[in-house]
């Protein structure tokens, strides 16, 4: 590398060269860990198997094998009575549908095999999500087969038939004597559901529908009402923004519509020779992104400039930016070099810039609106005419509802897709007050925190079983269609329940189609809309599902001076708490989904639980290290105990805790994982506040290891990440590239590929190749879950992750680095990095740069794993694939030891039909097993596995081509990761096909941005990475 002072590190252990890290760095496998019991703690010798046990087992094994061999079991094959025409056993059938969970939206295609949904893919016809998916959308298919789901209606704790429950509920609804009825839900984007609710409200007067969001943007909606007279979330277009300034809005990870924004954002992150040639504005060849935030978010990781701040000062920083652009606010705004630079860039890109804020404070959002107005962004990057309906929650009305319940003013309440007892700060009070409500009904699919306190539970269908529709943005419609008949016949869709109670006996499908024909299709074709899954209507006959003039009870002032003083008074001192959302678990609604629990957080790489993220300097001051359990106190009262995690990039004097954890009634796999942080949210001025002061951490002296995956593999100071800045790239497309040289026997220095002991093998047909663009990979993790679903990858649980035995075939490596030149100094005998003079050291860990790198089997053409396998279980194919034959593997693990990329995974245990791995629900429950991909083997104990480039998809694609008497077309064969990627950072194809995307990319980027990892080892991988280019000065 040219810049040798640049230091990359995967975690603080590596940066600080801690002894434990150094020890582990040399060991491929932690051999001292027990394998008899899956316990991370027990390392005593007695836990091993002794010789007698071994002989006994051996004898039994031989006897069992010979007995089993005597007679093959009789297997039945049961054909249909009437075979549906479109189903051919063994062929997948695809349906277009829509993933919705509260305010989350994703247009999807559902792959079904023999009538079972097994995989979610993005719908490329969607003009909102553009074929991208989120990790949660990918994982939602497993939630369908959740054994915690209720199988029938319940009254109290006993099951009830639908008819009986209906009769009782209707009788009670008619006997309320005009008492208030409240329907409480999370955001509903479905126009037909809203129609059904309206019909219910028309029948039972005094019914009100209240929406709230666990991750609320109520403040934004209120501010828009005040600034523009429209109480909506606008459509943002990040693709039109050359300068993006975000104040704590994690728009690539969790804010409003991350899949949509990621696709837009990535458009301005693509580079290439043609783009470079046609560019007129070299400075903004890439968008420039500033992030001002507290905790290191996914969006912050992708920013070019990042400024860590205390959350209470966010308003002041927004005000400072306002003063730089417009001026005139009398606040004592903090000075920041980065902010001034951002202001300058914004002023130079009027109408082509975007300022967003994740704050739920109305004042901050009004100020942001003023900045955008001044920059002329309204109507260009912010579209108020096409509002987004993905967040509609109103914190004020929800708080009012809870007060009403406590005051006994509510006669009946229906919870739909809502779990406020868990995910609302006043949830505990609500739960206690629910007994005062004479009729409480929940549509929840499980006995969750709220429904267990309701008189009736009428479980709704999972979205894969149901008909429904959605309107994520005004005029952009999409449909939900069933992909399997309801797993539990005694459940019913919530809308149909409402209709039945209204006295309308139309089934919901008919109701939906009628509504579409009358109000939405506007002459369009229903079948086409259903086939596409999405429908765009230009007609104006539709009824808006959100009233843009919704009244807010608290008056909002737009007087900037009063706003400025309010913002200034919000500033607090001392330790502050920022509550954030994680990309895996989100608001916690899918907490019982083990895939999401085990998805490593993109930044901290932690799985199975939340933690208190503290800044590096705080940890140094207090002598805390990751895993130390602290008691979190708020205003002097203890809230809960959690381990701390020292998080580089965390703002000084702040701590962050994620929502979504600490469920008590989610199900076996998701209960009692982490702590519930919702009760710590404050409610003031009509909105929930996701940050608060008055927080303190008290060490308890306990230690609880956090199940992190980050240091499980090491980089050992090699050029794995290659990056450069945009000005460097403009002068030299190969900027940041590292060209290793090896010395031959006669002392010459040559490129590694000129030295080889292996023969080249011909690849006459296909040569499968992947190109990963590090510049557009945002690290969202949807590829990891997509891979897990496609390839039947087991979940191993917290203890085994701690034992470094996670099974993900595709991991996203996160590398920290710092652009500045740091000096080193010995401290306690170890090298430490410092900047500045000896009295005011700054640590590089305080605000590092972050680069994400998806790491999977590199399908090396000279694969080191293949040469060491004693039984030839891993071999090379003529299509460039590094093949793994599980049935041949004897488990020596030589291959994993010899793999320089550390991408091979060993089955230490039998993860299926094993009660010890109950959390691996996709292999241990009758219901969960339905999600398994029948084309991929479930691996047994003692064999090695790894990424196969989704060989089953390659084979299927080739066969389709053969059946149709043609060559495969580029884009037809995609790996699960490539198809899940919302930013098209992962490209896959046949490089022997000159029309393919990978061929084009590599022919353009060859000897420029394209590099292979560890080129010096000369493994000749079939995966090329494109360098990361940051839009900042060198």
């Amino acid at each position, binding site marked *: 590398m040219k810049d040798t002072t640049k230091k990359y590190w995967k975690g603080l252990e590596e940066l600080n060269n801690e002894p434990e890290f150094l020890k582990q760095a040399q060991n491929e496998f932690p051999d001292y860990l027990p394998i008899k019991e899956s316990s991370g703690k027990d390392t005593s010798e007695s836990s091993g198997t002794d010789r007698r046990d071994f002989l006994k087992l051996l004898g039994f094994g031989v006897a069992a094998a010979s007995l089993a061999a005597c007679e093959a079991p009789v*297997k039945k094959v049961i*054909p249909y*009575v*009437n075979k549906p025409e479109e189903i051919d056993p063994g062929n997948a059938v695809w349906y277009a549908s829509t993933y919705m969970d509260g305010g989350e939206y994703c247009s999807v295609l559902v792959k079904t095999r023999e009538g079972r949904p097994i995989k979610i893919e993005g719908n490329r016809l969607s003009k909102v999500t553009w074929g991208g998916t989120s990790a949660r959308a990918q994982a939602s298919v497993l939630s369908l087969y959740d054994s915690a789901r209720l199988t029938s209606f319940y009254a109290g704790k006993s099951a009830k038939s639908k008819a009986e429950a209906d009769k009782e509920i209707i009788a009670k609804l008619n006997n309320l004597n005009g008492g208030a009825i409240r329907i409480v839900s999370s955001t509903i984007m479905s126009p037909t559901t809203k129609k059904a609710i309206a019909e219910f409200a028309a029948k039972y007067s005094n019914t009100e529908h209240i929406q709230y969001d666990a991750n609320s943007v109520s403040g934004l909606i209120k501010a828009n009402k005040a600034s523009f007279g429209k109480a909506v979330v606008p459509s943002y277009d990040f693709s039109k923004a050359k300068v993006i300034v975000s104040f704590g809005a994690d728009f690539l990870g969790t804010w409003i519509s991350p899949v949509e924004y990621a696709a837009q954002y990535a458009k301005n992150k693509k580079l290439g020779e043609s783009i470079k040639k046609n560019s007129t504005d070299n400075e903004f060849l890439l968008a420039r992104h500033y992030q001002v935030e507290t905790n290191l978010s996914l969006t912050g990781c992708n920013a070019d400039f990042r400024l860590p701040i205390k959350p209470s000062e966010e308003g002041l920083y927004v005000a400072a930016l306002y003063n730089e652009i417009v001026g005139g606010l009398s606040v004592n705004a903090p000075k920041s070099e980065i902010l001034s630079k951002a202001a300058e860039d914004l002023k130079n890109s009027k109408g082509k810039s975007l300022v967003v804020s994740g704050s739920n404070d109305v004042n901050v959002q009004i100020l942001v609106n003023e900045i955008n107005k001044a920059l002329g962004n309204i109507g260009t990057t912010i579209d108020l005419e096409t509002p987004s309906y993905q967040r509609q929650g109103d914190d004020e009305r929800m708080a009012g509802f809870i007060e009403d319940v406590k005051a006994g003013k509510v006669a009946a309440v229906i919870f739909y897709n809502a779990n406020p007892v868990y995910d609302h700060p006043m949830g505990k009070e609500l739960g206690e007050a629910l007994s005062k409500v004479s009729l409480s009904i929940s549509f929840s699919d499980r006995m969750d925190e709220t429904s267990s306190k309701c008189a009736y539970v009428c479980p709704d269908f999972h979205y894969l079983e149901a008909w429904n529709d959605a309107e994520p943005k005004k005029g952009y419609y999409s449909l939900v269609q069933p992909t399997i008949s309801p797993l539990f016949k005694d459940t019913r869709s919530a809308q149909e329940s409402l209709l039945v109670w209204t006295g309308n006996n139309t089934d919901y499908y008919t109701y939906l189609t009628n509504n579409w024909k009358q109000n939405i299709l506007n002459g369009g074709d229903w079948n086409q809309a259903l086939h596409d899954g999405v429908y765009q209507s230009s007609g104006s006959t539709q009824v808006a599902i959100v009233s843009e003039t919704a009244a807010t009870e608290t008056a909002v002032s737009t007087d900037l001076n009063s706003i400025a003083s309010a913002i200034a008074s919000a500033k607090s001192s001392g330790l502050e708490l920022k509550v954030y959302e994680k990309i895996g678990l989100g608001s916690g609604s899918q907490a019982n989904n083990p895939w999401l629990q085990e998805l490593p957080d993109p930044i901290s790489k932690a799985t199975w639980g939340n933690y208190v993220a503290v800044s590096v300097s705080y940890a140094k001051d207090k002598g805390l290290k990751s895993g130390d359990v602290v008691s979190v106190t708020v205003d002097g009262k203890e809230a809960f105990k959690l381990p701390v995690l020292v998080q580089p990039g965390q703002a000084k004097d702040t701590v962050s805790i994620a929502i979504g954890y600490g469920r008590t009634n989610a199900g076996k796999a998701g209960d009692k994982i982490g702590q519930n942080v919702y009760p710590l949210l404050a409610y003031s001025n009509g909105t929930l506040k996701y940050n608060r002061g008055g927080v303190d951490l008290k060490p308890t002296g306990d230690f609880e290891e956090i199940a992190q995956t980050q240091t499980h593999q090491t980089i050992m100071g090699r050029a794995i990440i290659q990056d450069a800045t945009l000005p460097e790239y403009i002068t030299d497309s190969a900027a940041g590239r590292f060209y290793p040289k090896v010395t031959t026997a006669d002392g010459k220095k040559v490129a590694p590929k000129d030295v080889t002991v292996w023969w080249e093998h011909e690849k006459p047909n296909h040569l499968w190749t992947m190109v990963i663009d590090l510049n557009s990979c945002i690290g969202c993790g949807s590829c990891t879950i997509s891979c897990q679903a496609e390839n039947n990858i087991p979940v191993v649980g917290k203890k085994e992750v701690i034992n470094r035995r996670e099974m993900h075939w595709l991991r996203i490596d996160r590398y920290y680095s710092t652009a500045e030149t740091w000096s080193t100094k010995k401290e306690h005998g170890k090298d430490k990095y410092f900047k500045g003079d000896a009295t005011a050291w700054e640590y590089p860990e305080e605000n590092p740069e972050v680069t994400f790198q998806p790491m999977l089997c590199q399908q090396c053409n000279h694969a080191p794993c293949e040469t060491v396998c004693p039984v030839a279980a891993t071999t090379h194919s003529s299509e460039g694939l590094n093949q793994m*034959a599980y*049935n041949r593997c004897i488990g020596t693990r030589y291959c994993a030891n010899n793999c320089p990329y550390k991408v091979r995974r060993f089955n230490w245990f039998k993860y299926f039909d094993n009660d010890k791995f109950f959390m691996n629900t996709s292999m241990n429950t009758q219901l969960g097993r339905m999600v398994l991909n029948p084309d991929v083997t*479930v691996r047994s104990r003692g064999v090695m596995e790894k990424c196969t480039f989704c060989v089953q998809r390659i084979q299927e694609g080739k066969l389709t081509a053969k059946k149709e008497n043609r*060559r495969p077309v580029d884009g037809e064969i995609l790996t699960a990761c490539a198809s899940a990627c919302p930013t098209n950072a992962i490209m896959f194809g046949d490089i022997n096909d000159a029309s393919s995307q990978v061929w084009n990319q590599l022919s353009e980027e060859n000897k420029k941005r394209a590099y292979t990892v560890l080129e010096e080892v000369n493994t000749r991988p079939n995966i090329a990475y494109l360098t990361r280019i940051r839009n900042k000065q060198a």
Partner: protein
Amino acid sequence: MSQTISCSCFYRSLLTFFFALFLSFSTFSQTPPAPAAGGLSPDAQKGESLFKVAGCNTCHAIDEKKVGPALRGVQKRWSSQAQLINFVRNSTKVIASGDPYANKIYNENAKTPMPAHEFLAEADVKAILAYVKEAPATVVDKGTTTGGGGNTINTSGGSGNSGIILTLIIVVLVLVLISLTLVLVFIKRYLKEKEATLIEEEKSLVNQKFDFGAFFKSTGFIATVIFIFVCIALRETYIGLLSVGVEQNYAPKQPIPFSHKLHAGQYKIDCNYCHTGVMKAKQANIPSINICMNCHSNIKEGPKYGKAAIAVLLDHYEKQKPIEWVRIHNLPDLAYFNHAQHVNAGKLECKTCHGAIDTMEVVRQASPLTMGWCINCHRAADSNNVRVKIQDNEYYAKFRAKHKDMTVEQIGGLECSKCHY
């Protein structure tokens, strides 16, 4: 001493000779019979394809009776061609109209009406009739995969031939043994006559008696016997272990005694008619009952079991209860097999793997379904049948420049992850 050496040399060369002979016999080849080509008129050619597309061949053959009568000379049997065409398009109408010949056929065929074919235009029916008229006698049913004269791979390595060779070797060896004994006897007798001229040592050699007791007790003998015994035991164990899980000739009793011999053999119903997935999907499909009912809504009595067997089917259909057949071909989960790949892309015949299914009263697993058996085919260079059809499929166009013909192995068919993933 020198005699014994030359003797063993003789044996060795003899064995080598027979071994070579054995090898030369065990590699044998087959030549496929050329398919009959018909010189049909354009109309009849159209009729020939319609004959299959419209499904006539499901119930009819040209020269023999299937479900319906043999069609040869059908035009002569009918009084008017118009009436015949009407009958083909809607037979029940013609029968109801009281046409005497139509009623006669109806009664002759167990009062099973021919289903209506109103989707066929008059010209189409005429074309089919033209084909019936011109169809060469040798082509009984060219369209079906079971009916044709395709060749099969003999995977047992020619057990018939090896039997003959073994017998030959034994006969020759016995002859050699007899001649050697005779030589010994002659020499002994000759030496006996000249006993007086021999020295003492030679005398004792000539008169020596064979001591069986000592022989059986000798370590050499015991060691040899033990060695042979161990060898046999090991070999049997090895063979036994190899056969674990190999269920060749598995022919379980099925809930309905369905006869492929009757349906595929006698009636020549296309395999694809019932096993609908074979060209498109991984599974060939066990037919769903609605497919059975296409014919069995009319045919309620079989030739062997009478009404009893079909009654079981009808009962399942009435109750809408699926039939639980016993699965015969069980591939382990670790191996991926796709019918479409082999039958559609590979253009293999069903018989190649499933054996002479059209002669099986009860279906049995004809092939061992072992990996070795799969691989043998993928390697096979000697049989046209299992080679890759690179000239017929555009997918393989890339290979045509270098190859005229390829084995599956040459396109990567022996690579692990073609079947294991």
